[in-house]
């Protein structure tokens, strides 16, 4: 099963990097929003430091949803999803492979946006790089796993581009809140400790709970 997840991961990555449609659109969107922020708030004020975590994670959530929408769309055009299921590829392998691919894409967007944000708003976000990486991994996984599962749910709908965000955003709020809080702390160079660690535990717990639910229920979603 892991082998099949790996194959699907490679295929999805290859397909996306070939066309880069979703990545480009997502990145363009992210960069435009970064610029928009500068009009919404005074870019030179100290206020930016306090809200940088919030801004960034709202941005990543939006870009993430754009990316994740495509996961199962790729399989739709020539009924490839049916072929995969008939070939006895377990639904969970399919989901894991796609989730890892989505995680990679979201991380790629973050890898571009974080430095750009730092430069545009004159804040060094990388004072604790390992912590930042950890937060990005945990929170991006949250977006990826829920996004992929919900993409599977909405793939057959007429209004899938609309329904996916509608059902996804409320559910990732706790993970986003945790990421925002921790990013704010970490970007001023303070190591999270004491009460702050609640948020790390929340992120980990969130990921564990929803990954387990996803692995258990993806079969029900995809197979009649």
């Amino acid at each position, binding site marked *: 099963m892991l082998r099949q997840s790996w194959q699907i991961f490679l295929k999805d990555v290859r397909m996306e990097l070939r066309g880069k449609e979703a990545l480009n659109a997502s990145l363009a969107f992210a960069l435009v929003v970064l610029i928009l922020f500068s009009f919404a708030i005074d870019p030179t004020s100290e206020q930016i430091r306090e809200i940088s975590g919030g801004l960034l994670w709202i941005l990543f959530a939006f870009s993430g949803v754009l990316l994740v929408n495509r996961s199962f769309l790729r399989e739709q055009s020539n009924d490839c999803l049916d072929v995969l299921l008939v070939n006895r590829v377990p639904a969970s392998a399919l989901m894991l492979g796609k989730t890892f691919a989505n995680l990679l894409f979201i991380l790629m967007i973050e890898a571009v946006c974080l430095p750009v944000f730092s430069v545009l708003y004159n804040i060094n976000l990388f004072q604790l790089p390992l912590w930042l990486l950890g937060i990005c991994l945990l929170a991006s996984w949250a977006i990826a796993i829920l996004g992929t599962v919900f993409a599977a749910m909405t793939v057959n709908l007429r209004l899938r581009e609309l329904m996916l965000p509608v059902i996804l955003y409320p559910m990732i709020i706790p993970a986003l809140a945790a990421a925002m809080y921790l990013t704010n702390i970490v970007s001023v160079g303070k190591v999270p400790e004491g009460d702050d660690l609640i948020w790390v535990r929340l992120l980990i717990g969130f990921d564990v709970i929803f990954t387990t*639910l996803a692995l258990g229920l993806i079969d029900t979603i995809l197979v009649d």
Partner: protein
Amino acid sequence: MFDKILLAIGLTSGLYLVRNLYTMLLVLPDEAAQGMIYRIMFFHIPSWWTCFLSFLVAGVASAIAIRSKSNRADSLAVAATEVGLAFTFVGLATGMIWAKIIWGIWWTWDARLTWAFITALTYAGYLMMRNMIPDPSERLRVTGVLNVFSFASVVICYKAIDWWRTQHPGAVMSFRTGGGSIDPAMEGMTFHNFIAFLLLCIVLVTLRLRQEETLREIEGLRRLAYSR
């Protein structure tokens, strides 16, 4: 027979509510800090408990529905979700009225209000999904899973927002804004109203469940007629 039981429960709920209103308005004194508006708490707080219970029932029903492909459980899930959502709106409305009168603002990021808003969005999404899937067994599978996720999300949200509020304290809605302990008569009243709400909830869910089952039957007959 069942109809009579339902009617009985409904009447009990109605009478209970009337009795509570009487006690509330004429027997209990005004609260120290809040004046007479505090009485809205007797509707605000029980509505949360009722809505949460409803969502719990919906979550369990959905889990059963996807496990055993039971249409009945699926109907119960949607009925409980809709009624739960109604009580969530009661909570939101009472909260907003309270906030307007006490603080002069319509909204405050009180932990429960925030949670209710997110919960309302979550389950509104579920109801929207249901409308978008015409085939009943696909609808059962997909929205069943969504409901299970929604319930997990709603529970996690509750904890998360509570923690957020401990770090970003702000307005709190309760009997205790003036500090100090709560009058046992008031506490009792909250429970009384909760029981009344619960009975009302049971009646509403049952009515909605029946309606859903009838709808299902009509849908089936219609398809059968068209297939001839």
